[in-house]
């Protein structure tokens, strides 16, 4: 007899339905033959032993027949123990233990030998597939909260017997509790806690308003990391669909997904591997830090310590908003619409340009340190500011504006950009040319090219930043003052 149950797999961060088809031969054979086809990996082949034991432990017979399970689409590589539960349900239906109609569910879960169900990752994806199909979704009860983020009809089960009861309508299964939807993690750093640093505060506000990538340079202990951590707090709230995308990316990375309004903040260490940052890994690719920071902030502390080749590979994904990963048999696109914030010391010892502590680096080592940063990556930062060490007077003084106040200004500025159709970060040369500029801007920029060595690309960077500064002020035409401030904010390094 033939039966099928649907499950789900993640391709990149997109959930895709996987049909689990089971066929049991009509005639009893001498020996049990149990095959799983459809590009299963080793852990799925092991499902045969788990499924057989669980079915027997649940009190059903496991007759010696020729049993074939196919995971469709057959060309999509599949991995993990999540298909145990749908395989068991399909096999039981093929044996005639359960009625065919009862397998109209989306199921996901790993089986123990005693028949109990363990939650696996991918619950959110299964929930999303279930929601699209209008079917109930059955997952291990530990994974109920994650699957419930999808908003679909999800049921938690504790054992295979429980799952059969839910499928046949004898038991409703565990329903998600009302507060299962996660709340926002507390803000990383509120701007109100940051003393002094007036220029850097202005820079992160402008960066947030236009989505510009930001480079902070300064001595150790100046507060670069704290400023970067304040960035998500002044970005506008995520919309519900954006929040679900963020949760999916986290779920795909095997992390507990959180649906909240705050944009994510990721700060990988400079010793992280390229796969950990870009995504990848053997077999089915998992998203890296770039994707976990999708729609949020990727913070690279000690930028110069990151391997140059890694920084070079970051350029294209940051520009395009996608990381493309190709592996044998599968290629996926992970989203990475990130805002990059990076911090660096001005020199290896960190004190170059400090008024109080002398720099102990040789000029040669400073040059070498700078060359690692220079080049095309540096060009991606519209804003580069110096973060000086804060003096005692400022530490004793009051903190600045709280994040919420800045966030409202940022949201207004982003609203204006939304009307124009694109974030200022993504404005190309032609789009910039088409915007209204005050009459003295051209002369100003020409002088800057002449005297400050501004490059053609720098010309565009300054105009993008100037447009954002004008947006923050609500000005329709970007004036000379806006361009001058943008010039000053493009400064360090």
């Amino acid at each position, binding site marked *: 007899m033939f039966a099928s149950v649907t499950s789900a797999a993640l391709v990149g961060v997109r959930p895709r339905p996987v049909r689990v088809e089971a066929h049991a031969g009509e005639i009893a054979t001498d020996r049990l033959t149990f095959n799983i086809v459809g590009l299963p990996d080793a852990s799925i082949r092991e499902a045969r032993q788990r499924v057989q034991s669980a079915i027997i432990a649940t009190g059903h017979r496991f007759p010696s027949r020729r049993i074939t399970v196919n995971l469709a689409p057959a060309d999509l590589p599949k991995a993990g123990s999540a298909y145990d539960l749908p395989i068991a349900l399909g096999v039981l239906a093929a044996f005639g233990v359960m009625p065919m109609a009862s397998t109209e569910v989306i199921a996901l879960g790993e089986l123990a030998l005693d028949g109990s169900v363990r939650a696996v990752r991918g619950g959110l994806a299964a929930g999303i597939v279930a929601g699209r199909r209008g079917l109930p979704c059955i997952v291990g009860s530990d994974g109920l909260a994650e699957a419930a983020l999808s908003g679909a009809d999800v049921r938690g089960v504790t054992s295979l017997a429980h799952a059969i009861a839910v499928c046949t309508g004898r038991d409703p299964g565990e329903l998600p509790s009302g507060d299962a939807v996660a709340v926002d993690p507390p803000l990383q750093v509120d701007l109100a806690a940051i003393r002094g640093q*007036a220029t850097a505060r202005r820079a992160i506000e402008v960066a947030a308003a236009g989505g510009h990538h930001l480079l902070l340079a*300064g001595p150790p202990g100046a507060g670069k990391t704290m400023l970067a951590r304040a960035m998500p707090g002044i970005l506008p709230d995520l919309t519900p669909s954006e929040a679900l995308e963020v949760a999916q990316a986290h779920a795909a990375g095997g992390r507990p997904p959180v649906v909240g309004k705050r944009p994510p903040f990721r700060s990988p260490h400079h010793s992280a591997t390229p796969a950990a940052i870009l995504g990848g890994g053997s077999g089915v690719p998992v998203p890296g830090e770039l994707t976990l920071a999708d729609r949020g902030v990727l913070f690279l502390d000690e930028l110069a310590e990151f391997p140059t080749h890694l920084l070079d590979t970051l350029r294209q994904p940051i520009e395009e908003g996608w990381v493309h990963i190709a592996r044998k048999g599968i290629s996926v696109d992970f989203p990475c619409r990130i805002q990059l914030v990076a911090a660096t010391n001005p020199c290896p010892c960190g004190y170059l340009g400090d008024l109080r502590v002398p720099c102990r680096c040789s000029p*040669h080592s400073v040059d070498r340190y700078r060359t690692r940063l220079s080049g095309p990556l540096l060009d991606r930062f519209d804003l580069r500011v*110096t973060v*000086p060490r804060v003096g005692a007077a400022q530490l004793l003084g009051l903190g600045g504006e709280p994040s919420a106040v800045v966030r409202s200004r940022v949201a207004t500025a982003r609203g204006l950009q939304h009307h124009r159709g694109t974030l200022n970060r993504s404005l190309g040369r032609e789009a910039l040319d088409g915007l209204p500029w005050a009459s003295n801007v051209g002369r*100003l920029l020409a002088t800057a090219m002449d005297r400050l060595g501004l490059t053609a690309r720098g010309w565009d960077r300054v105009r993008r930043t100037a447009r954002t500064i004008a947006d923050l002020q609500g000005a329709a035409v970007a004036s000379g003052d806006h361009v*001058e401030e943008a*010039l000053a904010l493009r400064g360090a390094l």
Partner: protein
Amino acid sequence: MSREHRLELAFLGLHPARTASLVERHGSAGAVVRLARRGRLEGVDPGRVRGAADCRGALERAGCRAVFDGEPGYPAVLGDLGDPPDVLFVRGVLPETPGVAVVGTRRCTGYGRRLAAACGRAIAAAGWPLVSGLARGIDGAAHRGTIEACGVGVVVLGSGSDVVYPAEHRDLHDALLATGGGVITEYPPGTRPNGWRFPPRNRIISGLSAAVVVVEAAVTGGALVTAMRAGEQGRVLFAVPGDVDREASVGCNLLIRDGAIPVLGADDLVEGLSLVLGPPLRTIRQEVVADAPDGVDRAVLAAARQPVAPDDLAAALGLPVPTVLAAVARLELGGRLSADEGLLLARDRPPPSSVSPAGGVPGR
């Protein structure tokens, strides 16, 4: 001694002290070259001893000329050295009048770099040739100051004139030649910048100068040795004072204690130098900016007489950060303010008519 033999001897590229003692022992340059050809000089490959015509060809390819001691064009001031180089290889201009040497450590601080550039500008503006070594740090900063003020910069290399070391100062080297300066060395073209070639080179730097300005020098290091030898040669020593606990200033402070003249600023240096070199050859050119800066710009300039971070500037003036940043960019574009490593500094003293004296910071 024939010029051919002297040229051939110089092309051996030996340590200048060894060359001098060989000539003294064997009587003439020709005798030494003959010994070298016969393989009788330790460390000299007889096959690589070049003939005079070959030497002249190499000079032509390197774009330089040879100037012999005792002939017209050889700087008379070098006669003060006990061991003047017999031949100088010169590209560009070899000034006949004594210049001012600016020396200091390669491992300088931002303070040193700033002061070196200011001294370089002041010396150049007064019309005196500035002599230095093209090294990283103080040397490079001083020469950049020379170029900014359109002065004459003289470089004394520790390598052949076709070997620019450090390589990142190639642009500086070319700019100095293009603006009427000179590049001088006693080593033949193709000579690598070995460490032992620099101390003899330093005697030429001080030799070409009537005064030596030490901007930053640690207790250990070539700069202080150069300064002390310059003192022995009868050169007037100037030193820029610095923090007593800063390594890079200890050498300068020691020199001042032992009688060097402290440099209290660029103008003070010019005043002091004019006692040694006579009045400035050019009148000091104050760059007058056509449009006088308005309120905010003026306040920013006045507050940036000392290096200052934009944050502190905004706090001191009580102005919003965007306003201050816009003013900073405007002044930077006008060439009145420089931003280096995040610190702002007003350039040159503004004309007296446009800015009130220090302390009188006008309002907005």
